[in-house]
Structures are given as structure tokens and as C-alpha cells.
């Protein structure tokens, strides 16, 4: 666990780079975090990040399937938006903990 500065604010991160305190998140921080990984966040990205934040804060388990059923984006689009490992990437940018789901 450590701290890192994004957009002028100190953020607490775990060993894998996920937020340990989701309330420290802001859009500006997300943009910088994404930039560090070579991604540029658009409005669509933020819609997905919002959905993830709400879902996680409700205590619901987060799956790729639930994102595909969110009405915001289908699964194919989600993979396009966050290339590579989309669920890991999106949860990192959304400032929530690492997903624990297998689907």
C-alpha cells in the first residue's frame, strides 16, 4: 500500500494500484490515471465509470455481464473502450477496489 499524487491530490493505493478509499476519486484523477496507461477518457468512459462506482458502492458484485446489461454499453463495446483487461482497468479508473468476480 502506498500513496501517489494525481491531479494535485494524494491518493491511497493498494499494491496493485487500486484505490483503497473510493471517496478520494475525482474525474481529474481518473483522467491522469488513464493517461499514465496511455488511455484517453471520453464521456462514454465516464458513464461506465459512474455505473461501476454506483454498483460497487451499493455493495453489488461487479461482473462484465452486469456492465453488458447496464444499458450504457454492450460487452463488445466495453472491451473496445478499455482494451486489454477491461474490468480490471475500468475498476482502477473508477477508483474502486479490485474486482473479485470470476465472470
Amino acid at each position, binding site marked *: 500500500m502506498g500513496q501517489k499524487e494525481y491531479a494535485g491530490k494524494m491518493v491511497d493505493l493498494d499494491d496493485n494500484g487500486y484505490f483503497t478509499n473510493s471517496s478520494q476519486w475525482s474525474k481529474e484523477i481518473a483522467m491522469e490515471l488513464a493517461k499514465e496507461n496511455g488511455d484517453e477518457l471520453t464521456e462514454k468512459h465516464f458513464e461506465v465509470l459512474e455505473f461501476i462506482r454506483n454498483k460497487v458502492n451499493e455493495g453489488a458484485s461487479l461482473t*462484465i455481464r452486469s456492465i453488458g446489461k447496464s444499458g450504457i454499453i454492450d460487452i463488445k463495446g466495453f472491451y473496445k473502450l478499455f482494451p486489454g483487461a477491461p474490468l480490471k482497468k475500468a475498476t482502477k479508473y473508477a477508483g474502486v477496489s479490485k474486482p473479485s468476480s470470476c465472470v
Partner: protein
Amino acid sequence: MAEEVKHPLKKVLMICAKGSLEDVLATLVMANGAVMEGIETKVFFTFFGLDAITKKRMNKLHTATVGNPAMRMPGGLAFPTWLGSIPGVEAGVSAMMKKQIDDLDIPGVAEFLEMIDAGGGEIYACKLAMDMFKLERKDLADEVIDVLTIGEFYEKADGLQTQIIFT
């Protein structure tokens, strides 16, 4: 001491040769999980595993209630083999499994194939088993990319950090 150099998995090939609900789901969970991690994923369905990609059968897979020593009653009591042989019991048990799986947000077989395909995972059917079961390309799910011989499937295992898993 020199730091250990890690070589993360880049490509995974899976072979599914069984057609019971839990065997197929195990393959699909692992395949979809690999896709989710950004690992190049290819799945080969052969013998009874073909049921998982056969349109008519894919959503009607069952769990075996006979010859399945791990089978338990709800609550954990042993499940007698003779009970599993009564008509309708296997269908009931399979329906219950499906319900429990759905509660965990695990999709059914058809939806799982769609998810794997949407993430760029590749699905193949075995030529020999197709001939054996008298199946044609049109009987298979739309996500199936090609019908291959096992040799052709092995050819896809080129490159470093590649694993083949038989389920």
C-alpha cells in the same frame, strides 16, 4: 539474489471434451476469465463437448445425477444413486443448478459464448467429432469460427507463454 523474472501467460488454448453442465461451465468460466485478463484465448470443443456449441442442445445441458459421487442433496446429505435414476430427478437437479448459477450472475451457455466472442476469444469445433455425431456447420452456434482437425488446433499454439488446458 537475482530477482525472479516472470513470464505472464499470453495465450491459452482450451479443449472441452465433456458435455455435462458443470464441465462445460468450467471451460467457459476459464475461457471467459482468460479473455477478461487480456489473454489470447481459443477453445476447441470435441466429442460430447460439442453439445455446448450445438444450437439445439447448448441450453439444455444437464448435470449427471447417476455416477456422480460428489452429488449432494440440498443441505449436504449424500445423494443416493438410485434417486438419480428416477425419471425427472436429473432434470430437476439440473434446473436447480442453473438457478444457483444464474444467482451468481454466471450466464447460460449461449450467453457465455457471446461474451467470449465479444471479448475476442475464439471458438472452434472438432472435425472428427462432428463427423462422428453427424453434425454440420449449420447446427453450430454462430460464434464458432471454424471446424478444425486437432492438428490445425495445435498449430494455433505457436508462440511463447502459451498453455493448453484440457478440461
